[in-house]
């Protein structure tokens, strides 16, 4: 008996974590998915009602606004983070003596909570006393900058804060990618007389495709989950102009008492993430297995 227990010890030790994941990840996903097919409002009800909640969801203007915002935010956020991250990484790769210090400065926002970042940008973008006043102080008396309270433009303030926070992270990923490229190839290209931009655009950047993919996955994932930044910067407003699926779900679940609808929106978020992440994880694990 003791010997058997001893031989099973590794599995016994792993079991609690595995059980927790099964219940809290998969069980909970199942629960949410099921409830999205019921008429649940303030309290969950378990009678199956088919696609009722999804039909309601797709009739709500607020949901379309949330999806639209997510699309706009994701595209701009990912694009700017990638461009800035790559630019900074390439610049830092030029044998800079103070590289360590610069890297620390570009990356520190990543250590902060989105709530802290959001608070800072809420103040910087303050319509009365923020950037607008600074630029007016430079002599541009008619300068207007009130994106934070402009329903059309508020979403872009979230992009600004998001990019400020996350671009350093993309830089770190690209820098690691740049450093992993074989120096011999680059030297050979140099000797052949290729210019520096040509080496970067022709050799180095194309060979970093996996890094681009990883960065894209991470950023897309961050974008879909974005919640904190919106809450602190605009609270989804003005009105619901800057709502995104995550804030929509939260509002339905915890302040509107529409659990079924919240579950339906969460399920859609989940499916979206699966569509992005699973093929990536699958290929990652398969590649690792081949090593």
């Amino acid at each position, binding site marked *: 008996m003791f010997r058997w227990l001893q031989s099973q010890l590794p599995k016994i030790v792993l079991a609690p974590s595995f059980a927790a994941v099964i219940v809290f990840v998969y069980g909970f996903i199942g629960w949410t998915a099921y409830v999205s097919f019921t008429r649940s409002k303030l309290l969950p009800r378990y009678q199956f009602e088919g696609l009722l909640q999804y039909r309601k969801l797709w009739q709500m203007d607020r949901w379309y606004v949330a999806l639209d915002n997510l699309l706009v935010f994701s595209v701009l956020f990912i694009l700017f983070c990638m461009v800035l991250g790559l630019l900074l990484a390439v610049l830092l790769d030029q044998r800079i003596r103070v590289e360590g210090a610069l890297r620390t400065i570009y990356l520190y926002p990543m250590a902060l909570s989105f709530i*802290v970042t959001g608070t800072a940008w809420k103040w910087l973008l303050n319509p009365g006393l923020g950037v607008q006043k600074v630029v007016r102080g430079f002599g541009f008396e008619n300068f207007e900058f009130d994106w934070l309270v402009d329903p059309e433009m508020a979403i872009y303030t979230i992009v600004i804060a998001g990019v400020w926070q996350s671009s350093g992270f993309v830089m770190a990923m690209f820098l690691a990618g740049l450093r992993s490229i074989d120096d011999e190839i680059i030297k050979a290209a*140099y000797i052949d007389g290729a210019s520096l931009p040509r080496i970067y655009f022709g050799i180095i950047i194309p060979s970093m495709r996996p890094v681009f993919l990883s960065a894209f996955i991470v950023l897309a994932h961050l974008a879909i989950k974005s919640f904190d930044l919106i809450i602190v910067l605009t609270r989804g407003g003005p009105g619901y102009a800057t709502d995104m699926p*995550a804030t929509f779900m939260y509002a339905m679940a915890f302040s509107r008492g529409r659990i079924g609808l919240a579950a339906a929106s969460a399920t859609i978020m989940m499916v979206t993430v699966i569509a992005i992440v699973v093929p990536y994880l699958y290929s990652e694990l398969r590649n690792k297995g081949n090593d």
Partner: protein
Amino acid sequence: MTESRFSAAGAAGTRMTFGRWLLFAVLGLFVLVYLMPLYVMVGTSLKDLEEIRSGSMLSWPETLTIAPWIKAWGSACVGIQCEGLKGYFWISVQITVPAVAISTLLGAVNGYVLTKWRFRFDNIIFALMLFGCFIPFQVVLLPMARLLGMLGLSGTISGLVLVHIVYGIGFTTLFFRNFYIGVPNELVKAATIDGAGFLTIFIRIMLPLSIPIIVVTVIWQFTQIWNDFLFGVSFSAGGAQPITVALNNIVNSSTGVKEYNLDMASAIIAGLPTLIVYVFAGRYFVRGLTSGSVKG
């Protein structure tokens, strides 16, 4: 390695050519962009409201005051209670410390089992755990809120500790697994032949080797949990709220005069612990970010 990268270019690379100047100008510009919000935060937090209204946010305070800091720490109003952030800071500490310790320990054990005591389907188990890192947490909020309610853990520190452990396991396991894969299996085999058992090998051989990855994992988990807002705001209503939730309440409170200096002092207080860790152990923080490289 990087030093030698462009050595083929000869001395041309080191002379201060026009290109080099441009390079430093651009890098310097970005330094300003990244530091500006921090500078404005610190500056604003040290001004009185009069100067905030009359002056530019970019100017350094003419008369320094630490009154906003004292108020943020001791008497700012979070909701209806006006006792400052100190209580919430302490709650965040009480949530973060056990959650980081336990999730790191579990990750170490899991990574050890998954690499050195392999069994059938261990890869599937790992894949299932890894997937847990990627779910949008909105999909677990509702059942979690109900379960915490049923367990009587709604609005408690223990409840949030539990939540952070459960959703941290995937990452900590990933970190340790990837690290232990590089530890030679022969080490474990030799120890087994010497009669060492599962736990002895873990404690005597694996853990002493694991200091770097423990540091990476602890920093990662500390940053994640201290900075968490979603779980905090969803599961702490009317109870033990972490500091991020309190900060949001201060910033988005609609009553009274808006005290921007108070907002900034509060934000810095909330961000300081992770910022300090980053400044002193940034190397490990970056390693966590890029080695996992699968996090959002």
